[in-house]
């Protein structure tokens, strides 16, 4: 993480002179590596399921087969290809996370703008609702909602979106309130440019960088929540491959087949490190 800037501001005396060229400054290097890591993972999640289309193909005579040329990550305790399952699990995690974050972002942003714009009872109702949701741990919401159907994907997605919309709502409501009360919007209103113009030209540019940062974070925490649920045993149901579930399944065979447990752990940590490293400045979330 870069807090080089902050450090230079805080350190007494002259600022440290950077030895490296500008484009290889602390932050950009981290970001480049992170972006490369993530791009590799996304490629794996997209192409992997095409290369190994069947993740449920069993060959019990080859259980716990060590990695070899045919199977880069060997086979698991039921004789299934580990790399095929890993590719499908990575795909599932990324797709689900992006879906959840999109839903939460869309709803939270719209609700936030509505609350700031209309004020009055709309604001009161939405704000009251957000006050309640802010006190609920995300995992609790997902757990309770995912109890609807045995780890059906859409309920997991709904739970995650429900647990995340509040953050977007609160941020957008606070920011939009400031922008909408400003002189720029007032003059746009006097010129009768209409609400679409105000949203596009005034609100959107102001909110976009913040929303991007929050969404990056949100994807990470969604992937984490999914794998945590799988790990605890109330997430995605077997035989669907899911990172957390794969770790749980592999753990009893840790001594015989360490690659089985390490592969999903590595994928998970790579995703998280990549997303953490992408952010240029450390924000306090």
């Amino acid at each position: 993480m870069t807090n080089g800037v902050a450090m230079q501001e805080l350190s007494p005396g002259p600022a440290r002179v950077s030895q490296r060229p500008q484009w290889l400054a602390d932050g950009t290097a981290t970001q480049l590596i992170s972006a490369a890591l993530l791009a590799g993972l996304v490629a794996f999640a997209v192409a992997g399921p095409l290369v190994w289309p069947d993740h449920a193909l069993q060959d019990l005579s080859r259980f716990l087969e060590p990695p070899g040329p045919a199977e880069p990550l060997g086979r698991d305790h039921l004789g299934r290809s580990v790399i095929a399952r890993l590719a499908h699990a990575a795909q599932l995690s990324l797709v689900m996370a992006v879906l959840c974050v999109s839903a939460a972002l869309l709803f939270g942003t719209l609700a936030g703008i509505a609350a700031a714009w209309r004020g009055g009872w709309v604001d009161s109702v939405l704000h009251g609702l957000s006050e309640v949701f802010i006190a609920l741990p995300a995992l609790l919401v997902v757990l309770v909602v995912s109890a609807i159907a045995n780890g059906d994907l859409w309920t997991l997605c709904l739970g995650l979106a429900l647990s995340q919309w509040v953050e977007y709502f609160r941020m957008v409501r606070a920011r939009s309130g400031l922008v909408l009360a400003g002189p720029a919007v007032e003059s746009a209103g006097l010129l009768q440019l209409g609400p679409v113009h105000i949203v596009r030209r005034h609100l959107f540019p102001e909110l976009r960088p913040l929303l991007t940062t929050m969404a990056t974070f949100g994807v990470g925490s969604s992937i984490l929540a999914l794998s945590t649920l799988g790990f605890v045993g109330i997430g995605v149901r077997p035989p669907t491959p899911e990172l957390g579930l794969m770790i749980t399944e592999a753990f009893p065979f840790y001594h015989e087949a360490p690659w089985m447990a390490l592969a999903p752990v590595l994928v998970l940590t790579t995703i998280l490190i990549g997303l953490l490293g992408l952010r240029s400045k450390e924000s306090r979330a």
Partner: protein
Amino acid sequence: MTLSTAKPRASNSALRRFAVPPALAATASVLGRRAIQAAGVVLLVSTACFAIVQSLPGDIAFRIAAGRYGYDQVTAASADSVRAELGLDRPVWLQLVDWLAGLASLDLGNSLVTGASVAGELGLHLASSLQLAVAALVLALIVGATVGALAAARPGGILDRLTTVWVSAARALPPFLLGLALILLFSVHLGVLPAAGHGEANNIVLPAATLAVGLSGLFARVTRDAMAQIRQSDYVRFAATKGIGSWLVFLRHVCRNTGVTLIAYVGVQVLVLIEGVVVVESLFAWPGLGHALVHAIFWRDIPMIQAAALALALMVVAMNTVVDLATAAVDPRPRHKEAVL
């Protein structure tokens, strides 16, 4: 979640000898706001639990019968008897009214699986969850504040950079992976600590450490930033100019002002802590609320799901209330802006 860090305090408050006790009005408004929040949480969680469990696939009566008598003993007759006994065949809205009325009279009902009173079981779970949460929080605060203070002593120094690495690592490692790693290291390979269980004194070490690592990284970062900023502030320099010893300046000015930021930040981290409690308890078989919730969801034990979920959510509200009051007590300046949480 964003946190608006407290501005360095005006110098006149630092020169005050005693903290003015918080006005009664401030306390009342905090308590009122949190009480409304708690009521909303109870209503939402309770209704959600009920609605969700109503829409479950399959026949609840069969599952409950299976939980009670074992899978090989389940017959249509035993399921029917369960259904009649628990009133599972009445219209939904009647059951919901019953449900909320029972909750209003503080009757949490009986576990559908064990038949025991949920309130009694809840007390045990709550005690062990609180034990774990408090142990983790204290550990994280001690470690985090110490490391942060040492890092702030030399901004940009070697320790400061190590802290940054530690914070990032602690954040990139999900609690369950960290817990697994700790189990492998201390229980499987070294054999010095028990991996699971409850009752022995050393049972709490691994779960509390797992929770504390993630939190301590964040606390270290906040402490470091706040301290580095406060050290540069006018009132600290003035105190040093006056000739006050460096230790006294550190304790009286730097520590107290850092405390304001740190306490406010604990409130932000309460959610992370409670989430961690759920995960870590399931991993280490620690008999707390999270463990109970996961099991109740697995067995569709409706009253238990509700009780555990409510207790966890109310724990968050209670902890935040304590943080609000503590912030008001430590930092007597009037506040015109509400904290984020």
